[in-house]
């Protein structure tokens, strides 16, 4: 090839303006608030006529102002603007944006280094879990006895949806965020993600979306349930505008992150890292990313339609104008079911990785495990209407959707086979990650089996909309995904901090959370079987005992999670030093120093076999 490519230009350009080098989280907030005020001011003058009916336009403009300001303030638009003007970043600029020689300050900036982004994701996830946790405790406190005493039904209703959506967001990023960013590029032998700036963009977009979502609490919450069914959502106050804008922004974040993850894995693998030598967690990450790329645009459109309904008097979901909630339900669940696997697959893939290392054995039937994840991701795209069995929408499709849904149990079954098969006849090292993994196996069976009931249409016509459903997906989300996420945290914590996560506190936390989950959601199954509906601020005396047990269990989960938080904070500061490869694992992230240097490898490794062969040398390494 005779042409020189554009990217090869390293002509000395003037460095990015001095202003760009002073941007950080604080300037982002300032700019966000300023533009939010501008949006509010404009909205007031353009639309406000003194009636609450028009407050939505003002709210939406204010929030768009916030988002735009936040992006400008954090520096997300610097690069596109410079591109427009034909001034690309120099190498020095790129090093600066990667956080080179900036100490802790780099965690507060638009930093492109994938390890910084990974740590930022850990913090964001913990923050979201805290908010969702407070709301969960408020909900369970209200439900400790029948009647409305702690909060009335208005406040209760405004909590439940925010709890749901905040936790969904937290779990979507809980594994793929921190570890897909921190360890995944090292695992494949890359020096960074394919698009480092997009990496930072996805993180900070998530932050701005999360602030808007949590901000919903300040404007009267979201009294519509987390599925924001079209008709009821149209009735809600400004909280619904916050929600819709948060989702629209969040979709930008996931799309950008997914594109980045997929491109990184496909194009950045080091020499010899063929697809059948990929660590299985990397497979989990890209399958998830591909699924997210497909699924979240539906949510984007669902909520954009909602915004139109509320600000431009359209009638997508307004029955009087010919619209229908079923449209919203279809769009929502076209995203909603794939999203469950977006949450689940990274956790499962991380556990495959952990099980192999901890059992000192290769991942059992690696190809089948990858195949199962692919099949699961594919199936999840064609099962969405099982959430609508009782909606009255297209009853003739119940049969087909029941078939596709129940087929899911086959790939899910393979997950168990792979996990237990990997541990079988191993020398299982009972460290903290392993303990949480066994908790996962126990809970995931419960969540999985109850899923079979719900996919059966006749049974669903009794169980739909009850606490049984709530218990089912909490066994999946809390009992399985959260356990997997904590196992991953315990496993990779030494790589991030150079220290072990405190074993004793971790186990104490495990037993509190594990028993709490059994009490809370086990009793919740019984409430649901008896016929207690979801999302109710009060309930009949028939459900008194099971709800009391659930609340006690919830406090145990809370205590356990707080102990874990204490363990993370103390271990990060003064835990037992671990060295670069505490688990004697073969994957590449353990072969680099801890903490990994900027750009990870001075010399890119060449891979000659997959990382799952354990022999005497790996013991003594």
């Amino acid at each position, binding site marked *: 090839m005779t042409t020189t490519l554009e990217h090869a230009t390293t002509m000395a350009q003037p460095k990015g303006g001095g202003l760009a080098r002073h941007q950080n989280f604080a300037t982002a907030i300032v700019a966000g608030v300023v533009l939010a005020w501008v949006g509010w001011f404009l909205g007031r003058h353009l639309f406000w006529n003194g009636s609450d009916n028009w407050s939505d336009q003002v709210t939406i403009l204010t929030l768009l102002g916030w988002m735009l300001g936040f992006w400008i303030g954090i520096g997300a638009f610097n690069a596109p603007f410079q591109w427009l003007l034909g001034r690309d970043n120099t190498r020095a600029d790129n090093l600066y944006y990667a956080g080179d020689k900036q100490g802790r300050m780099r965690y507060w900036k638009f930093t492109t280094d994938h390890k910084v982004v990974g740590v930022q994701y850990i913090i964001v996830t913990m923050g979201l879990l805290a908010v969702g946790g407070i709301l969960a405790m408020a909900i369970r406190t209200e439900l400790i006895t029948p009647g409305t005493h702690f909060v009335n*039904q208005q406040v209760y209703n405004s909590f439940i949806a925010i709890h749901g959506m905040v936790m969904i967001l937290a779990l979507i990023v809980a594994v793929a965020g921190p570890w897909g960013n921190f360890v995944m590029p090292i695992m494949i032998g890359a020096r960074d993600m394919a698009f480092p700036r997009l990496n930072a963009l996805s993180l900070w977009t998530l932050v701005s979306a999360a602030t808007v979502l949590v901000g919903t609490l300040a404007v009267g919450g979201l009294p519509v349930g987390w599925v924001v*069914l*079209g*008709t*009821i959502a149209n009735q809600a106050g400004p909280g619904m505008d916050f929600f819709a804008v948060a989702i629209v922004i969040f979709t930008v974040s996931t799309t950008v992150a997914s594109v980045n993850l997929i491109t990184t894995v496909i194009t950045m693998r080091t020499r010899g890292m063929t697809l059948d030598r990929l660590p299985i967690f990397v497979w989990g990450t890209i399958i998830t990313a591909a699924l997210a790329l497909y699924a979240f645009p539906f949510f984007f459109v669902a909520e954009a339609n909602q915004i139109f309904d509320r600000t431009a008097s359209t009638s997508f979901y307004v*029955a009087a104008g010919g619209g*229908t*909630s079923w449209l919203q339900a279809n769009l929502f669940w076209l995203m909603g079911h794939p999203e469950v696997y977006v949450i689940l697959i990274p956790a499962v893939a991380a556990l495959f990785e952990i099980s192999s290392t901890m059992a*000192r*054995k*290769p991942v*059992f*039937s*690696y190809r*089948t495990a990858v195949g199962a994840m692919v099949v699961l991701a594919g199936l999840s795209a064609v099962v969405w209407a099982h959430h609508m069995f*009782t*909606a*009255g929408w297209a*009853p003739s499709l119940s049969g087909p959707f*029941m*078939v596709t849904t*129940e*087929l899911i149990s*086959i790939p899910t*079954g393979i997950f*168990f*086979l792979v996990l*237990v098969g990997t*541990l*079988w*006849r*191993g020398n*299982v*090292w009972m460290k903290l990650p392993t303990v949480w993994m*066994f908790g996962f*196996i*126990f809970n995931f*069976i419960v969540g999985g089996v109850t899923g*079979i*009931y719900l*996919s*059966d249409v*006749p*049974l669903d*016509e*009794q169980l739909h*909309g009850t606490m049984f459903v709530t218990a089912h997906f909490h066994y999946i989300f809390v009992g399985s995904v959260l356990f997997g996420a904590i196992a991953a945290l315990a496993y990779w914590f030494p790589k991030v901090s150079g220290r072990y996560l405190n074993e004793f506190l971790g186990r104490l936390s495990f037993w509190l959370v594990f028993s709490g989950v059994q009490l809370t959601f086990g009793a919740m199954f019984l409430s649901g*079987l*008896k*016929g207690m*509906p979801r*999302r*109710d601020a*009060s*309930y009949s005396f028939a459900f008194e005992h099971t709800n009391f047990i659930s609340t006690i269990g919830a406090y145990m989960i809370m205590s356990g999670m707080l102990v874990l938080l204490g363990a993370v904070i103390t271990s990060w500061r003064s835990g037992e030093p671990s060295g670069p490869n505490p688990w004697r694992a073969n994957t590449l992230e353990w072969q680099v120093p801890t903490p990994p240097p900027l750009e990870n490898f001075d010399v890119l490794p060449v891979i000659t076999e997959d990382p799952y*062969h*354990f*022999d*005497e040398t790996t*013991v003594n390494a």
Partner: protein
Amino acid sequence: METSAKKSLRSFYWTWVILTAVGVGLSLWLPRRYMPAAMSNDAHLTMTTMILFSICAAPVASGVYAGALHVLRHHRYRGDGVPPPAPQIRESTKLLTSWITASAILTVFVLVWGLGALAAENGSSSSNPLVVNVTGQQWVWTFSYPGTHVVSDELYLPENREVEFRVTSLDVTHGFWLVNMGVQVDANPDVITTIHTTPDKLGVFEVRCEQFCGLNHAFMDAVGYVVTPQKFSSWLSAQPARA
């Protein structure tokens, strides 16, 4: 070495069998103990399905639990430091195919049963069902009986006659759920959705909203009564005519 492995395998099988037995016991007991008393053909089918599926799930769940317990008992590394490498087993085609075959067979069974039950629920057995118009609104159900002037906030149904509910909503989406009858369908504004069921037991039952519908959703319920046909017609005629 070989014998101890065999011995430990035997303990695995025993654990599996015992756990399965416990699972089957729970399957037979829990639904009957905790599910609301069945008052219609659909509710009976629901109960049977619940028990049957639980029994099917028992060996699968028990197998995984027995496997995990077996690993905890026999394959845990009890020494200090890094465990030595274990046998580097990567595949077992036999295990894989038998596992997939077994789960496929169970899935197909569950599917066939479920599709059959679905057909049984959807099929209408009566050519002359009692029609009840159900209106959901925030946060009350009202029931009207076409052909009469009766509108009521309570639902009266005659025993052993198929009922066709025509459900709609005046505002947002509600979920019409006859708790003891095992049927539910959403009440959608501007749309009429239909469900059938045949009450087959006298008594009082609960009508609930199971789709979140706003401020007082938790309080949106109604009482239903299944009465003899004679009582039903006398109740109808005792009701005041409403506009």
